[in-house]
C-alpha cells in the first residue's frame, strides 16, 4: 500500500516537473548521467552556513543518512566557497564513515564499489550578490507582473521597470537602464500571436543601452514574451548572452512561469559563478548547475501542498529569508534579502522598526540596546545569545522579522486583492515547515514550535516540522533529477517532526477553561484535558505515533478553524500535541510588564522547563552603566548578568506558581485586546505604543528624549 502511495506521489511530482520545459535549465552533460542513482549528495551554500545532506538507498528505499554543516567560506579569510563544501563533506565523512572526497577535495562521482563517493551531486545557493535586473514588459498588470512572479524564486533586485505606461523619452529610458547597471534585462510582453511592434521597441531600447555598456559588462538578456519574435531577438542581441524562455503570459488568462524560472536559475548560476570563487567548481559537479535555494524550496512547497494539503515553508536565514506558500491551489514564493538573523539583522531592524521588536520584549529596552543587539549580530552573524535577556532580543528580532516576511508575502498568495489584508486571519495550513538556524537550532523542540506559532500565528490544525539541516532546499534540486528519491525521503523521518498544533482563534479569557481535549492514542488509552485560555498546553506524543483527538471550545466566540468542535487524527512529534489556547490574533500585551507576564510562562509551557521570571529591575527604567573590562562586569553588549538557573526546589515552587500563572497574568497584564474589541477597534496584534513608555523616554541613558521611536531616524549601519 505504502509502495503504491509512493508511486502515485512520484507520478505527481514528475508530472509537476514535466510541466517545465526540457530545454531549461540545461542539464549539464556528466559522465555519470547514465549510472543508476542510489546515493545523492546535496549541498546548500547559504550566506552564513554551508550545509550538506547525504541520501542513500536503505533496503531499496531512499533515506536521509547524514547531514553536516559548516560556515560558508566565500568571504574573509578563505575567499573560496568550495572550501566550505569540502569542510562540510569532511564532517559528513567523519560522521557517516563514508569517504566522499578525494585527497584533492574533489567529490567522488559515481559511487565506487567500496561505497565511497555518490552517484549524484546537486547544489543550491542563496549567497552572493543579487542580480540587478531591469524588467521590461508591455502592461504593468499583465506581462510585467508575470515576469515579476517568475522572478520571485530567484535572488534578484528589480532596479528598473519599463513598460508602455512609462512616459519617459527613449533617451531617459535608455539612461535609466544604463545607470541601473543591470546584470540581467528581463523582457516580456505580447501574448502568443499578439503584439509585436511595441515589444520590439522595448527590445531596441534594451539593445541600445546594452551596446553603450562596456563589452565585458553587458547584461544577460532573458526574453519570455511573444514567441514569434524569438528570431528577431536573437538577431538583435547576437553579441551578448541571450536566454529564451516560453512566454510568461501566452494568453491574457494564462500564466506560464516555469520556463522563465528555469532560465532565471541558469542566469543565477552563470552570474554567481563569475562572482564567487569556488562557485563554478561546485556547479561543475552538479548535473543541473547550482539552483537558487528559494526556487528549490518553492518546488517542494508546491509538491507537498499538492499531495499533503496546503503547506507553508518559512526559512529565516542569516542573510535572506524565504517564505513559500502553497495555498489556494497556487504557489507563492517570497524572498526578502533584508530579513535575516545574521548579516541582515541590521536591515531586518530597519524593515520592522524598533517598535516591532520592542513589542516582543518582556523588559524595558532603550533604542540603543535593541539596535546594538541587531548591529552586533550583523557584525558577528553566527553568534548566539548566552543569556536570557539576549535570547529575548534574538527571538524578538526573529518574530518581528518573520511577521514582516509574512505581511509582505500575503498579498501575492492570491490574485484576489480582497485577501491582501496582511492582518486578516491566516488561511489554514495543513503543515508548516521551519528552516534556518535561528528557528531550528534551539535544541528545544517546544521552543522551536512556540517560535513558529508566535511568528506565523496559524489557525486550525497544522502539523509542525523543522528542517535544521537544509534538506528542503536540497530536495528541491534533487527533484529535477531523481524525483522518486524526494518522495521517499519526505516519506521517511527526514524532517524533524515537532508535532501537531491545534490553534484556538478568538480571544480566550486568561485563566478560564478555553477548550476541552480528548485524546485517544493508538493503544486506546484516553486522556482528557481542560486547557486554560492564554496558555500553550502540550500533550506528549512521540514522533511517528498517531492519535485521535477531539477538541471542543468552552467559551463563546472561540473557534478552531471556524468550528467549535473538531475531531481529527494527529501526528506526534518531539514537542507533542500543542494546544495553543492563547488566541488569534495572538493577544500580546502592550506593555513590557504585560509581556513579562506572558512570555516567560509561554517559554516554560512550551519547553517544560521551570519558568524564569523577569527580574524586577528589568522592568524599571534606568540608565545602564558603562561596563568595565573586569570579568565580573555585566551588560556587555546586552549580555547582562542575571539570576542563575533555579534549584530543583525553586523549580518546584515555580511550577506551583506557574499553575497559578494564568490568574497572576490576568491580574498583572493589561487587557487591551478585549477592551479594544469592545470599543470596536480593529483586532490586530497589539504593538507597544510610545505613550505607554513615558518613563523610559524620560530616562534614556543619553539623557535626551527619544520620542522618535523608529529606525527611520536612527543612523544606518550600512549607508
Amino acid at each position: 500500500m505504502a509502495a503504491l502511495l509512493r508511486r502515485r506521489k512520484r507520478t505527481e511530482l514528475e508530472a509537476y516537473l514535466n510541466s517545465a520545459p526540457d530545454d531549461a535549465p540545461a542539464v549539464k552533460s556528466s559522465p555519470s548521467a547514465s549510472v543508476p542513482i542510489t546515493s545523492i549528495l546535496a549541498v546548500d551554500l547559504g550566506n552564513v552556513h554551508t550545509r550538506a545532506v547525504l541520501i542513500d538507498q536503505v533496503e531499496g528505499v531512499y533515506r536521509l543518512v547524514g547531514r553536516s554543516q559548516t560556515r560558508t567560506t566565500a568571504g574573509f579569510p578563505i575567499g573560496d566557497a568550495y572550501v566550505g563544501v569540502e569542510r562540510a563533506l569532511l564532517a559528513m565523512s567523519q560522521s557517516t564513515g563514508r569517504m566522499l572526497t578525494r585527497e584533492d577535495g574533489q567529490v567522488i562521482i559515481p559511487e565506487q564499489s567500496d561505497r565511497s563517493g555518490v552517484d549524484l551531486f546537486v547544489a543550491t545557493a542563496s549567497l552572493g550578490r543579487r542580480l540587478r535586473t531591469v524588467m521590461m514588459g508591455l502592461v504593468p498588470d499583465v506581462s510585467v507582473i508575470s515576469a515579476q512572479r517568475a522572478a520571485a524564486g530567484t535572488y534578484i533586485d528589480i532596479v528598473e521597470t519599463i513598460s508602455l505606461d512609462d512616459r519617459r523619452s527613449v533617451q531617459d529610458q535608455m539612461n535609466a537602464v544604463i545607470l541601473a547597471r543591470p546584470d540581467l534585462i528581463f523582457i516580456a510582453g505580447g501574448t502568443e500571436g499578439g503584439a509585436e511592434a511595441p515589444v520590439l521597441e522595448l527590445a531596441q531600447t534594451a539593445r541600445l543601452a546594452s551596446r553603450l555598456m562596456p563589452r565585458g559588462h553587458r547584461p544577460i538578456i532573458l526574453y519570455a514574451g511573444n514567441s514569434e519574435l524569438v528570431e528577431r531577438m536573437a538577431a538583435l542581441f547576437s553579441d551578448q548572452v541571450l536566454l529564451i524562455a516560453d512566454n510568461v503570459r501566452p494568453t491574457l488568462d494564462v500564466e506560464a512561469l516555469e520556463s522563465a524560472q528555469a532560465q532565471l536559475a541558469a542566469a543565477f548560476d552563470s552570474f554567481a559563478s563569475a562572482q564567487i570563487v569556488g562557485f563554478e567548481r561546485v556547479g561543475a559537479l552538479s548535473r543541473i548547475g547550482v539552483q537558487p535555494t528559494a526556487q528549490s524550496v518553492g518546488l517542494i512547497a508546491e509538491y507537498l501542498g499538492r499531495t499533503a494539503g496546503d503547506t507553508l515553508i518559512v526559512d529565516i536565514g542569516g542573510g535572506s529569508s524565504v517564505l513559500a506558500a502553497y495555498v489556494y491551489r497556487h504557489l507563492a514564493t517570497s524572498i526578502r534579502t533584508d530579513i535575516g538573523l545574521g548579516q541582515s539583522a541590521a536591515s531586518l531592524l530597519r524593515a520592522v522598526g524598533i517598535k516591532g521588536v520592542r513589542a516582543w520584549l518582556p523588559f524595558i529596552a532603550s533604542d540603543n540596546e535593541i539596535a546594538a543587539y541587531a548591529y552586533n549580530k550583523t557584525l558577528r552573524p553566527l553568534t548566539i545569545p548566552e543569556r536570557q535577556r539576549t535570547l529575548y532580543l534574538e527571538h524578538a528580532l526573529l518574530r518581528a522579522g518573520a511577521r514582516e516576511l509574512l505581511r509582505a508575502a500575503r498579498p501575492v498568495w492570491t490574485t484576489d486583492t480582497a485577501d491582501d489584508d496582511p492582518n486578516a486571519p491566516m488561511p489554514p495550513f495543513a503543515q508548516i515547515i521551519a528552516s534556518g538556524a535561528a528557528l531550528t537550532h534551539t535544541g528545544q523542540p517546544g521552543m522551536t514550535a512556540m517560535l513558529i506559532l508566535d511568528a506565523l500565528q496559524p489557525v486550525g490544525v497544522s502539523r509542525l516540522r523543522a528542517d535544521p539541516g537544509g534538506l528542503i532546499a536540497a530536495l528541491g534540486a534533487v527533484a529535477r533529477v531523481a524525483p522518486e528519491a524526494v518522495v521517499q525521503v519526505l516519506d521517511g523521518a527526514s524532517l524533524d517532526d515537532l508535532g501537531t498544533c491545534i490553534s484556538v482563534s478568538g480571544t480566550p479569557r486568561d485563566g478560564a477553561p478555553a477548550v476541552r481535549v480528548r485524546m485517544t492514542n493508538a493503544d486506546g488509552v484516553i486522556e482528557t484535558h481542560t486547557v486554560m485560555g492564554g496558555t500553550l498546553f502540550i500533550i506528549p506524543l512521540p514522533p511517528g505515533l498517531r492519535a485521535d483527538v477531539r477538541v471542543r471550545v468552552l467559551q463563546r466566540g472561540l473557534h478552531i478553524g471556524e468550528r467549535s468542535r473538531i475531531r481529527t487524527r494527529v501526528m506526534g512529534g518531539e514537542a507533542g500535541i500543542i494546544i495553543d489556547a492563547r488566541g488569534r490574533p495572538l493577544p500580546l500585551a502592550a506593555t513590557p510588564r504585560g509581556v513579562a507576564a506572558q512570555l516567560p510562562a509561554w517559554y516554560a509551557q512550551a519547553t517544560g522547563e521551570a519558568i524564569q521570571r523577569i527580574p524586577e529591575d528589568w522592568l524599571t527604567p534606568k540608565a545602564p552603566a558603562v561596563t568595565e573590562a573586569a570579568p565580573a562586569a555585566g551588560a556587555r553588549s546586552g549580555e547582562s548578568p542575571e539570576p542563575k538557573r533555579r534549584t530543583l526546589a525553586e523549580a518546584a515552587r515555580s511550577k506551583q506558581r506557574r499553575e497559578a500563572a494564568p490568574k497572576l497574568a490576568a491580574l498583572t497584564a493589561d487587557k487591551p485586546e478585549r477592551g479594544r474589541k469592545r470599543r470596536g477597534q480593529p483586532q490586530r496584534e497589539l504593538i507597544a505604543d510610545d505613550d505607554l513608555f513615558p518613563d523610559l523616554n524620560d530616562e534614556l541613558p543619553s539623557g535626551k528624549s527619544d520620542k522618535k521611536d523608529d529606525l527611520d531616524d536612527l543612523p544606518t549601519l550600512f549607508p
Partner: protein
Amino acid sequence: MTSQPYFPELRLMLPLTVIRRERLLPDDVDGVVEVRANSSVSLRDVVARGTNPAPYVLIDAMKFFRLRDPDQLPPLMQVEIGDTVELNQVIAQKGRRRLLSPIDGRLAYAGAGRIIVQSVPTIIELEAGVNGVVIEVKKGRGVVLETYGALFQGVWGNGKRAIGTLRSEPEGGMAQVTFDAIDIGFRGALLVTRSPLTHETLANASDQQLSGLIAPSMEPDMIDAALAAPYAILLTEGFGSMRMNSTNFRFLDELDGLQATIDAVLPAPLEVRRPELIVKVQLPSVGYRPPHPNIDRPLAVGMTVRLSRGDMAGFVGEVIDLPTAPVLLDNGLRVRCAQVQLNTGEKRVVPLENIEVSG
C-alpha cells in the same frame, strides 16, 4: 556518530605575519590597473581606475539634417567616436547647418541616423590601502598586494583610511588629550582608547587632529557622527558600551610608538574585507620570512581562543574540553559548546559559535 569538526570564526591578531590583500574595483566597473607586478605601493597610491556609467544624450541627426538615408550621416561627422567634446562644439556639419554638442562629454556612437554623446563619467580611484608590494595584477579589476607587520582586526570601521603613529591613551583616558596639553605628540596619531566612544571623544579627537581612533565600542546613535568624523575610526568590540578588554589593549599597547595604517572598512553586505590595523614592525633578522596566518584549523582541545560574546567577551583562554553532546545554557538553548579555561583561571562553557581564534 562522531563529533563533526568545527571551524571557528577567525579575527586576526598577530604580532608579525604576512598580509595579503586583494584590491578590486566594483565588479560592474570597467577599469584599468595602474601598477605593475612587483612594484612597491604605499597606502594612498592609486592602483586602479575605473569609470562609473554616465548619462547619454541621444540626438536624432536624421531629423536635424533632414537626411533620407542613415548612411549619409558618417561623412558629416566632425569628431571621431571616443573623442572628447565640449558644450556647443560642432560635432557634425552639413553645409551651413551645424550640430552642436549639448553637453561636455565624449562621442559614444554615431550611426543609424543617430548620434550619442556621453556626459563626463566620474572616475573611481582604487587606493592600495597598505604599504606593500604588488604580487598579482588582475587585468581590468585590481591587484593583490603583500606586506608584513603586526595585524589587528576589528569589527567596524567608518570607511576611512589613515596612517600615523600608534599611541595609547594617557593615564586618565581621552579626556587628558586636550588642547591645553603642552604635549602635541598625539597630533596626527592613531590613538587607542579603552573607553567607549562618546560625542565628546569624537570632538576631542577632531580638535587634536588625530588621524585615527581605535576604540572598543559606541552606541548605535553615534554612527552618523562617526561616519562624519574626518579621521578613521575602528571599533574592536562592537556596538554598546563595552570597554576594551585587556588582551586587545595589551596587544596594541605593546605596539605603542610604531608607524601604523588603519583601513577602517565600513562593513557592508558582501564586503569581504575587515576593518584592520597594520603596524610596521622590524623583522627579527634580515631575510626572515614571517609566517602566514593559519586560517584552516578546526577547533581542538589546547587551542587558544577568544570569546566573542557574553559577559566575558574579549577574554582569551584555552579550550580544555569539547563535549560532543549539546549543553543546556542558562537561557534554555541547547547547543554545542566548548569548555574554556580563561587566562583569569576561570572555566567557562561557551557555545562554539561564540568563539573566535586569532590566527
